[in-house]
């Protein structure tokens, strides 16, 4: 469902109000039991509806890191887990309504050429539309 919004709503990665949702951990400032976004949150952004995925628990973060084969010192595990929300918040920002054909910039060209082509195409379209709207007298 799209939510119409004329102006972009500016949201930091991790909105301050969300911080208050999580009781502070005695050592690192976050609770693992309630870590992450345990319910789906939404962000209004450019008129689009961004759905966050279920947040990871500390145990899930640890399991993911172990699966990646990273031998993380015990002292650092809770700190990394507590920072995982940054990734979740950023990843949520990337998911938005797009057409199926919206391509990634997966082959990064020297900037300028393809974008210029896009702009030129837009200008051509705009010019065609304006000219098409004119009466014979205005032409």
């Amino acid at each position, binding site marked *: 469902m799209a939510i119409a919004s004329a102006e*972009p*709503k*500016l*949201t*930091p*990665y*991790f909105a301050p109000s969300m911080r208050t949702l999580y009781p502070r951990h005695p050592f690192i400032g976050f609770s693992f039991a309630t870590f992450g976004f345990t319910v789906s949150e939404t962000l209004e*952004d*450019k008129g689009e509806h961004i759905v966050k995925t279920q947040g*990871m628990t500390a145990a899930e*973060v640890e399991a*993911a*890191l172990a699966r*990646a*084969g*990273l*031998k*993380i*010192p015990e002292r*650092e595990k809770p*700190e*990394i887990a507590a*920072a*995982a929300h*940054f*990734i*979740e*918040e*950023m*990843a949520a*920002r*990337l*998911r*938005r309504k*797009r057409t199926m054909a*919206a*391509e*990634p*910039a*997966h082959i*990064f060209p*020297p*900037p*300028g050429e393809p*974008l*210029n082509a*896009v*702009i030129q195409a*837009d200008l051509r379209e705009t010019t065609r539309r304006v000219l098409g709207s004119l009466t014979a007298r205005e032409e």
Partner: protein
Amino acid sequence: MVPDFLTIAEAGALIAKRDLSPVELTQSRLARIERLDGQLHSFIRVLGDQALAAAREAEAEIMAGRWRGPLHGIPIGLKDIYETKRVPTTGHSKVMIDHVPQADATSVRRLTEAGAIMLGKLATHEFAFGGPSFDLPWPPARNPWDTTRFTGGSSSGTGAAVAAGLVLGGTGSDTGGSIRGPAAYCGLAGLKPSYGRISRAGVLPLAFSLDHAGPMAWTVEDCAILLQAMAGHDPADPASADRPVPDYRASLAREAKGLRIGLIRHFYETDNQANEATRQGIASAVKVFEDLGCSVRELRVSPLADWAACGIVIMLSEAYAIHEVTLRERFVDYGEAFRDRMALAALITGADYVQAMRLRRELMTELAKAMTDLDLVITAAAPSEAPTFDAVSKFAIFERPSLTMPFNVTGSPAMSVCCGYTANGLPLAFQLVGKPFDEATVLKAAHAYEKATTWRSIRPRSPLP
């Protein structure tokens, strides 16, 4: 007696007239390194003998009438991710402490061919990402304006060494702001050119599609001189653009009058709120541009957090792909800042990366369209003056959306320009952004600003605070 501070343009002119000896200039910088770098830690390797030999060779050439240009005999420093033939290139990391390249990076070779003297290898955040760190083989560089403060990263050594007058210029790299951040905090001019403008061949990668090599120096003119030598097509870099390289220094002579500038105010007023001193600095800079005959109008683009999320997910994903095997095998050989930030990349999915690249395409198109009737964009380069080291947390780069990352996402040329000092004497900066491959306009406008203000006459105090 060689002055403590000289720009490349000043020294180059004196050398060309044979009023300054490259050997004396190099000796004076080595003496300055000896005197000051114990406090700054900007160098991780000083190449004294090699530099003096090169300076003698330059002097002989010049005396024989073979002056190569404004970099001939000029001592510069290289961020220690630029590979140097038979000289260790470590990325400031234990992981590559024994890495001795067999060839120079393309840009190093070009600077050498232009006659520059390589004074040494400069500190960086570990692999241009993890820092500031106190658990690496070398300490982090310190800010010459106040040694309790951060230089910005990751081209930290270049920022400190240029500001302190230990070198006249240097190389940096910029994946999310690593040239412009240290330039802003250390009071330099720092240019991230267009993606593809300077070869990345032989520069240790952080993130393939976001990495830019570029110059850092005291003035915009010096950056133009360095860029001239470094730029140009290189078949060894698959992203290198085969585009003509204009005469950047000549472009500085042209008037800035008539330039159309878009001000992205929301980046630093709401999205990542800059402090009052920074806002005032930018407001004053806008007035200077208007007085120079430029038109300035406000521009709104997507929220900064979108640009930063896009850039960071791409950066982490690409960097993780590079370091994945070594992270598995030698996790604790990396510094804590690098390894713990990089561990977060293991949580990013393939779909996240693709979504970031889809957003990247949208954002690139958005900026290109927004700049259709503009020549430049101005916004903040940093939200404040340099913070103290203890104010920079391990995950600081994720806490506030970066003001510099948007132009790594788009690959646009972007420059940090000093726009004054706080009441306690710390540099402030703005960022000037051009259209792809139009570094000449960025340099022209930034140079006009420098000439219209007095900031370049202020240097760090000695002894260092």
